[in-house]
Protein backbone atom coordinates (compact mmCIF):
# COMPACT_ATOMS: atom_id res chain seq x y z
CA UNK A 1 0.00 0.00 0.00
CA UNK A 2 1.38 3.41 -0.92
CA UNK A 3 2.67 5.55 1.97
CA UNK A 4 3.21 9.20 1.07
CA UNK A 5 6.65 10.33 2.16
CA UNK A 6 5.64 13.96 2.60
CA UNK A 7 4.68 14.62 6.20
CA UNK A 8 3.75 18.28 6.33
CA UNK A 9 3.79 21.36 4.13
CA UNK A 10 4.20 24.69 5.88
CA UNK A 11 3.19 27.74 3.89
CA UNK A 12 4.84 30.82 5.44
CA UNK A 13 3.94 34.14 3.86
CA UNK A 14 3.40 37.76 4.76
CA UNK A 15 -0.15 39.17 4.51
CA UNK A 16 0.99 42.47 3.02
CA UNK A 17 4.16 41.94 0.97
CA UNK A 18 3.94 42.25 -2.80
CA UNK A 19 5.85 39.09 -3.68
CA UNK A 20 3.50 36.97 -1.54
CA UNK A 21 0.53 37.72 -3.78
CA UNK A 22 0.68 34.30 -5.42
CA UNK A 23 0.90 32.64 -2.02
CA UNK A 24 -2.16 34.55 -0.79
CA UNK A 25 -4.13 33.63 -3.91
CA UNK A 26 -3.07 30.01 -3.46
CA UNK A 27 -4.29 30.04 0.15
CA UNK A 28 -7.63 31.62 -0.78
CA UNK A 29 -8.44 29.49 -3.81
CA UNK A 30 -6.41 26.32 -4.27
CA UNK A 31 -5.18 25.29 -0.81
CA UNK A 32 -8.44 23.63 0.27
CA UNK A 33 -8.65 21.55 -2.91
CA UNK A 34 -5.01 20.58 -2.55
CA UNK A 35 -5.57 19.51 1.06
CA UNK A 36 -8.60 17.44 0.04
CA UNK A 37 -6.74 15.77 -2.81
CA UNK A 38 -3.81 14.87 -0.53
CA UNK A 39 -5.46 13.73 2.71
CA UNK A 40 -2.27 12.25 4.18
CA UNK A 41 -0.31 15.53 4.00
CA UNK A 42 -0.82 18.11 6.76
CA UNK A 43 -0.94 21.65 5.39
CA UNK A 44 -0.03 24.46 7.80
CA UNK A 45 -0.80 28.00 6.69
CA UNK A 46 0.90 30.61 8.86
CA UNK A 47 0.96 34.29 7.89
CA UNK A 48 3.94 35.94 9.52
CA UNK A 49 5.62 39.35 9.08
CA UNK A 50 8.82 37.70 7.78
CA UNK A 51 10.87 38.57 4.69
CA UNK A 52 10.05 36.15 1.87
CA UNK A 53 7.26 33.61 1.28
CA UNK A 54 8.45 30.04 1.83
CA UNK A 55 7.08 26.57 1.25
CA UNK A 56 8.60 24.15 3.80
CA UNK A 57 8.25 20.45 3.04
CA UNK A 58 9.10 17.91 5.77
CA UNK A 59 9.50 14.25 4.90
CA UNK A 60 9.24 11.05 6.88
CA UNK A 61 13.01 10.53 6.94
CA UNK A 62 13.58 14.00 8.45
CA UNK A 63 14.74 16.03 5.45
CA UNK A 64 13.32 19.53 5.27
CA UNK A 65 13.13 21.26 1.89
CA UNK A 66 12.54 24.99 1.64
CA UNK A 67 11.27 26.45 -1.61
CA UNK A 68 10.98 30.15 -2.29
CA UNK A 69 7.58 31.06 -3.73
CA UNK A 70 8.18 34.81 -4.11
CA UNK A 71 6.56 36.27 -7.22
CA UNK A 72 5.02 32.99 -8.33
CA UNK A 73 1.46 32.56 -9.52
CA UNK A 74 -0.87 30.30 -7.56
CA UNK A 75 -0.84 27.70 -10.36
CA UNK A 76 2.96 27.51 -10.19
CA UNK A 77 2.77 27.11 -6.41
CA UNK A 78 0.21 24.34 -6.84
CA UNK A 79 2.48 22.58 -9.33
CA UNK A 80 5.41 22.92 -6.90
CA UNK A 81 3.32 21.52 -4.07
CA UNK A 82 2.23 18.48 -6.10
CA UNK A 83 5.84 17.89 -7.15
CA UNK A 84 6.98 17.99 -3.51
CA UNK A 85 4.13 15.69 -2.52
CA UNK A 86 5.32 13.08 -5.01
CA UNK A 87 8.98 13.16 -3.88
CA UNK A 88 10.56 11.12 -1.17
CA UNK A 89 12.93 12.78 1.27
CA UNK A 90 16.13 11.33 -0.23
CA UNK A 91 18.83 13.85 -1.28
CA UNK A 92 18.71 14.86 -4.89
CA UNK A 93 22.22 13.90 -5.92
CA UNK A 94 23.61 11.69 -8.64
CA UNK A 95 22.93 8.00 -7.90
CA UNK A 96 26.20 6.23 -8.54
CA UNK A 97 24.72 2.81 -9.23
CA UNK A 98 21.09 1.88 -9.90
CA UNK A 99 21.51 -1.35 -7.89
CA UNK A 100 22.59 -2.25 -4.37
CA UNK A 101 22.90 -5.49 -2.43
CA UNK A 102 23.66 -6.17 1.20
CA UNK A 103 24.73 -9.74 0.37
CA UNK A 104 26.72 -9.59 -2.86
CA UNK A 105 28.24 -13.05 -2.47
CA UNK A 106 26.29 -16.29 -2.03
CA UNK A 107 29.14 -18.79 -2.40
CA UNK A 108 31.68 -16.75 -0.47
CA UNK A 109 33.79 -13.96 -1.95
CA UNK A 110 37.02 -14.91 -3.68
CA UNK A 111 40.20 -14.61 -1.61
CA UNK A 112 43.68 -15.75 -2.66
CA UNK A 113 43.27 -19.12 -0.98
CA UNK A 114 39.95 -20.14 -2.58
CA UNK A 115 41.40 -22.19 -5.42
CA UNK A 116 44.47 -23.50 -3.63
CA UNK A 117 44.57 -27.05 -2.20
CA UNK A 118 43.26 -27.11 1.33
CA UNK A 119 46.48 -28.66 2.67
CA UNK A 120 47.80 -25.10 2.87
CA UNK A 121 45.22 -23.90 5.39
CA UNK A 122 43.76 -26.91 7.13
CA UNK A 123 45.78 -28.57 9.85
CA UNK A 124 44.75 -32.19 10.10
CA UNK A 125 44.79 -34.37 13.21
CA UNK A 126 48.29 -34.58 14.58
CA UNK A 127 49.73 -38.02 13.69
CA UNK A 128 51.28 -39.94 16.57
CA UNK A 129 54.94 -40.83 15.95
CA UNK A 130 54.96 -44.55 15.23
Amino acid at each position, binding site marked *: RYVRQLQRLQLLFSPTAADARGARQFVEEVALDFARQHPDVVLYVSPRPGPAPLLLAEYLNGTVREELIASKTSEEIAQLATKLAGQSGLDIIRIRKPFHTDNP*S*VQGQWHPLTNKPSALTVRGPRLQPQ
Partner: protein
Amino acid sequence: MVLLSAPLWLRSRLTDRFWRVQEVLKYARHFRGRKNRCYKLAVRSVQRAFVKSTKARREKKRFLRALWITRIEAASLEHGLKYPAFISNLLKSQVELNRKMIADLAIYEPKTFKSLAALAQRRRQEGFLAALGDGKEPEGIFSRIVHHY
Protein backbone atom coordinates in the same frame (compact mmCIF):
# COMPACT_ATOMS: atom_id res chain seq x y z
CA MET B 1 5.55 60.71 -21.83
CA VAL B 2 7.53 57.52 -22.34
CA LEU B 3 11.33 57.61 -22.25
CA LEU B 4 12.75 55.03 -24.63
CA SER B 5 16.29 55.02 -23.24
CA ALA B 6 17.52 55.56 -19.69
CA PRO B 7 19.31 58.85 -18.85
CA LEU B 8 23.10 58.77 -18.55
CA TRP B 9 23.19 59.52 -14.80
CA LEU B 10 21.21 56.32 -14.04
CA ARG B 11 23.62 53.47 -13.22
CA SER B 12 22.85 49.81 -12.77
CA ARG B 13 25.49 48.07 -10.65
CA LEU B 14 26.19 44.35 -10.40
CA THR B 15 24.94 43.16 -6.99
CA ASP B 16 25.30 39.35 -7.16
CA ARG B 17 28.91 39.10 -8.27
CA PHE B 18 29.62 36.94 -5.18
CA TRP B 19 27.10 34.29 -6.17
CA ARG B 20 28.18 34.27 -9.81
CA VAL B 21 31.76 33.64 -8.66
CA GLN B 22 30.66 30.96 -6.19
CA GLU B 23 28.83 29.06 -8.97
CA VAL B 24 32.19 28.46 -10.63
CA LEU B 25 34.28 28.03 -7.47
CA LYS B 26 32.02 25.32 -6.05
CA TYR B 27 33.20 22.99 -8.82
CA ALA B 28 36.86 23.82 -8.10
CA ARG B 29 36.87 23.22 -4.35
CA HIS B 30 38.74 19.93 -4.53
CA PHE B 31 41.49 21.18 -6.84
CA ARG B 32 45.11 21.65 -5.86
CA GLY B 33 46.82 24.99 -5.38
CA ARG B 34 45.42 28.44 -6.06
CA LYS B 35 42.98 27.08 -8.65
CA ASN B 36 40.58 26.24 -5.79
CA ARG B 37 40.54 29.82 -4.45
CA CYS B 38 41.23 32.35 -7.20
CA TYR B 39 38.43 32.92 -9.68
CA LYS B 40 40.60 33.74 -12.69
CA LEU B 41 42.57 30.51 -12.39
CA ALA B 42 39.51 28.50 -11.40
CA VAL B 43 37.51 29.43 -14.50
CA ARG B 44 40.12 27.91 -16.78
CA SER B 45 40.56 24.79 -14.64
CA VAL B 46 36.84 24.16 -14.27
CA GLN B 47 36.27 24.51 -18.02
CA ARG B 48 39.06 22.02 -18.75
CA ALA B 49 37.74 19.67 -16.06
CA PHE B 50 34.27 19.62 -17.63
CA VAL B 51 35.65 19.02 -21.12
CA LYS B 52 37.83 16.19 -19.86
CA SER B 53 34.96 14.57 -17.99
CA THR B 54 32.78 14.68 -21.13
CA LYS B 55 35.44 13.11 -23.29
CA ALA B 56 36.31 10.52 -20.65
CA ARG B 57 32.85 8.96 -20.76
CA ARG B 58 33.83 7.19 -23.98
CA GLU B 59 37.16 6.07 -22.53
CA LYS B 60 35.47 4.75 -19.38
CA LYS B 61 33.74 2.04 -21.39
CA ARG B 62 37.03 0.93 -22.91
CA PHE B 63 38.79 1.06 -19.56
CA LEU B 64 36.16 -0.99 -17.75
CA ARG B 65 36.11 -3.63 -20.49
CA ALA B 66 39.89 -3.98 -20.27
CA LEU B 67 39.58 -4.31 -16.47
CA TRP B 68 37.00 -7.09 -16.78
CA ILE B 69 39.14 -8.91 -19.33
CA THR B 70 42.16 -8.74 -17.02
CA ARG B 71 40.13 -10.14 -14.13
CA ILE B 72 38.64 -12.96 -16.21
CA GLU B 73 42.09 -13.81 -17.50
CA ALA B 74 43.50 -14.02 -13.98
CA ALA B 75 40.60 -16.15 -12.75
CA SER B 76 40.70 -18.55 -15.68
CA LEU B 77 44.48 -18.97 -15.34
CA GLU B 78 43.85 -20.17 -11.79
CA HIS B 79 41.81 -22.96 -13.32
CA GLY B 80 44.37 -23.69 -16.01
CA LEU B 81 42.74 -21.97 -19.01
CA LYS B 82 43.87 -19.00 -21.01
CA TYR B 83 41.47 -16.13 -21.70
CA PRO B 84 41.00 -16.61 -25.49
CA ALA B 85 40.33 -20.33 -25.02
CA PHE B 86 37.90 -19.64 -22.17
CA ILE B 87 35.86 -16.99 -23.99
CA SER B 88 35.75 -18.73 -27.36
CA ASN B 89 34.70 -22.05 -25.84
CA LEU B 90 32.03 -20.39 -23.72
CA LEU B 91 30.60 -18.75 -26.83
CA LYS B 92 30.67 -22.03 -28.71
CA SER B 93 28.71 -23.68 -25.88
CA GLN B 94 26.07 -20.94 -26.28
CA VAL B 95 26.77 -19.36 -22.90
CA GLU B 96 26.20 -15.70 -23.76
CA LEU B 97 27.48 -13.98 -20.65
CA ASN B 98 29.16 -10.63 -21.10
CA ARG B 99 32.53 -9.85 -19.59
CA LYS B 100 31.07 -7.75 -16.80
CA MET B 101 28.94 -10.63 -15.49
CA ILE B 102 31.73 -13.20 -15.82
CA ALA B 103 34.08 -10.89 -13.91
CA ASP B 104 31.49 -10.39 -11.15
CA LEU B 105 30.91 -14.15 -10.97
CA ALA B 106 34.64 -14.74 -10.72
CA ILE B 107 34.82 -12.39 -7.73
CA TYR B 108 31.66 -13.20 -5.82
CA GLU B 109 30.79 -16.71 -7.00
CA PRO B 110 34.06 -18.65 -7.36
CA LYS B 111 32.42 -22.09 -7.55
CA THR B 112 30.18 -21.00 -10.44
CA PHE B 113 33.23 -19.65 -12.22
CA LYS B 114 35.01 -22.96 -11.66
CA SER B 115 32.12 -24.80 -13.30
CA LEU B 116 32.17 -22.33 -16.22
CA ALA B 117 35.90 -22.97 -16.66
CA ALA B 118 35.27 -26.72 -16.58
CA LEU B 119 32.55 -26.34 -19.22
CA ALA B 120 34.89 -24.37 -21.46
CA GLN B 121 37.63 -26.94 -20.98
CA ARG B 122 35.28 -29.83 -21.87
CA ARG B 123 34.05 -28.02 -24.98
CA ARG B 124 37.65 -27.38 -25.94
CA GLN B 125 38.51 -31.08 -25.69
CA GLU B 126 35.45 -31.99 -27.75
CA GLY B 127 36.48 -29.43 -30.34
CA PHE B 128 39.95 -30.99 -30.59
CA LEU B 129 38.44 -34.48 -30.93
CA ALA B 130 36.08 -33.31 -33.67
CA ALA B 131 38.89 -31.61 -35.57
CA LEU B 132 41.54 -34.30 -35.17
CA GLY B 133 39.52 -37.52 -34.68
CA ASP B 134 37.84 -37.33 -38.13
CA GLY B 135 34.37 -38.74 -37.71
CA LYS B 136 34.90 -42.17 -36.18
CA GLU B 137 34.07 -41.16 -32.56
CA PRO B 138 30.56 -39.94 -31.65
CA GLU B 139 29.92 -36.18 -31.54
CA GLY B 140 30.56 -34.34 -28.30
CA ILE B 141 27.66 -33.74 -25.92
CA PHE B 142 28.50 -30.12 -25.13
CA SER B 143 29.05 -29.31 -28.81
CA ARG B 144 25.36 -29.68 -29.59
CA ILE B 145 23.66 -26.43 -30.53
CA VAL B 146 20.20 -25.61 -29.19
CA HIS B 147 18.01 -23.69 -31.65
CA HIS B 148 15.59 -21.32 -29.99
CA TYR B 149 13.15 -20.68 -32.74
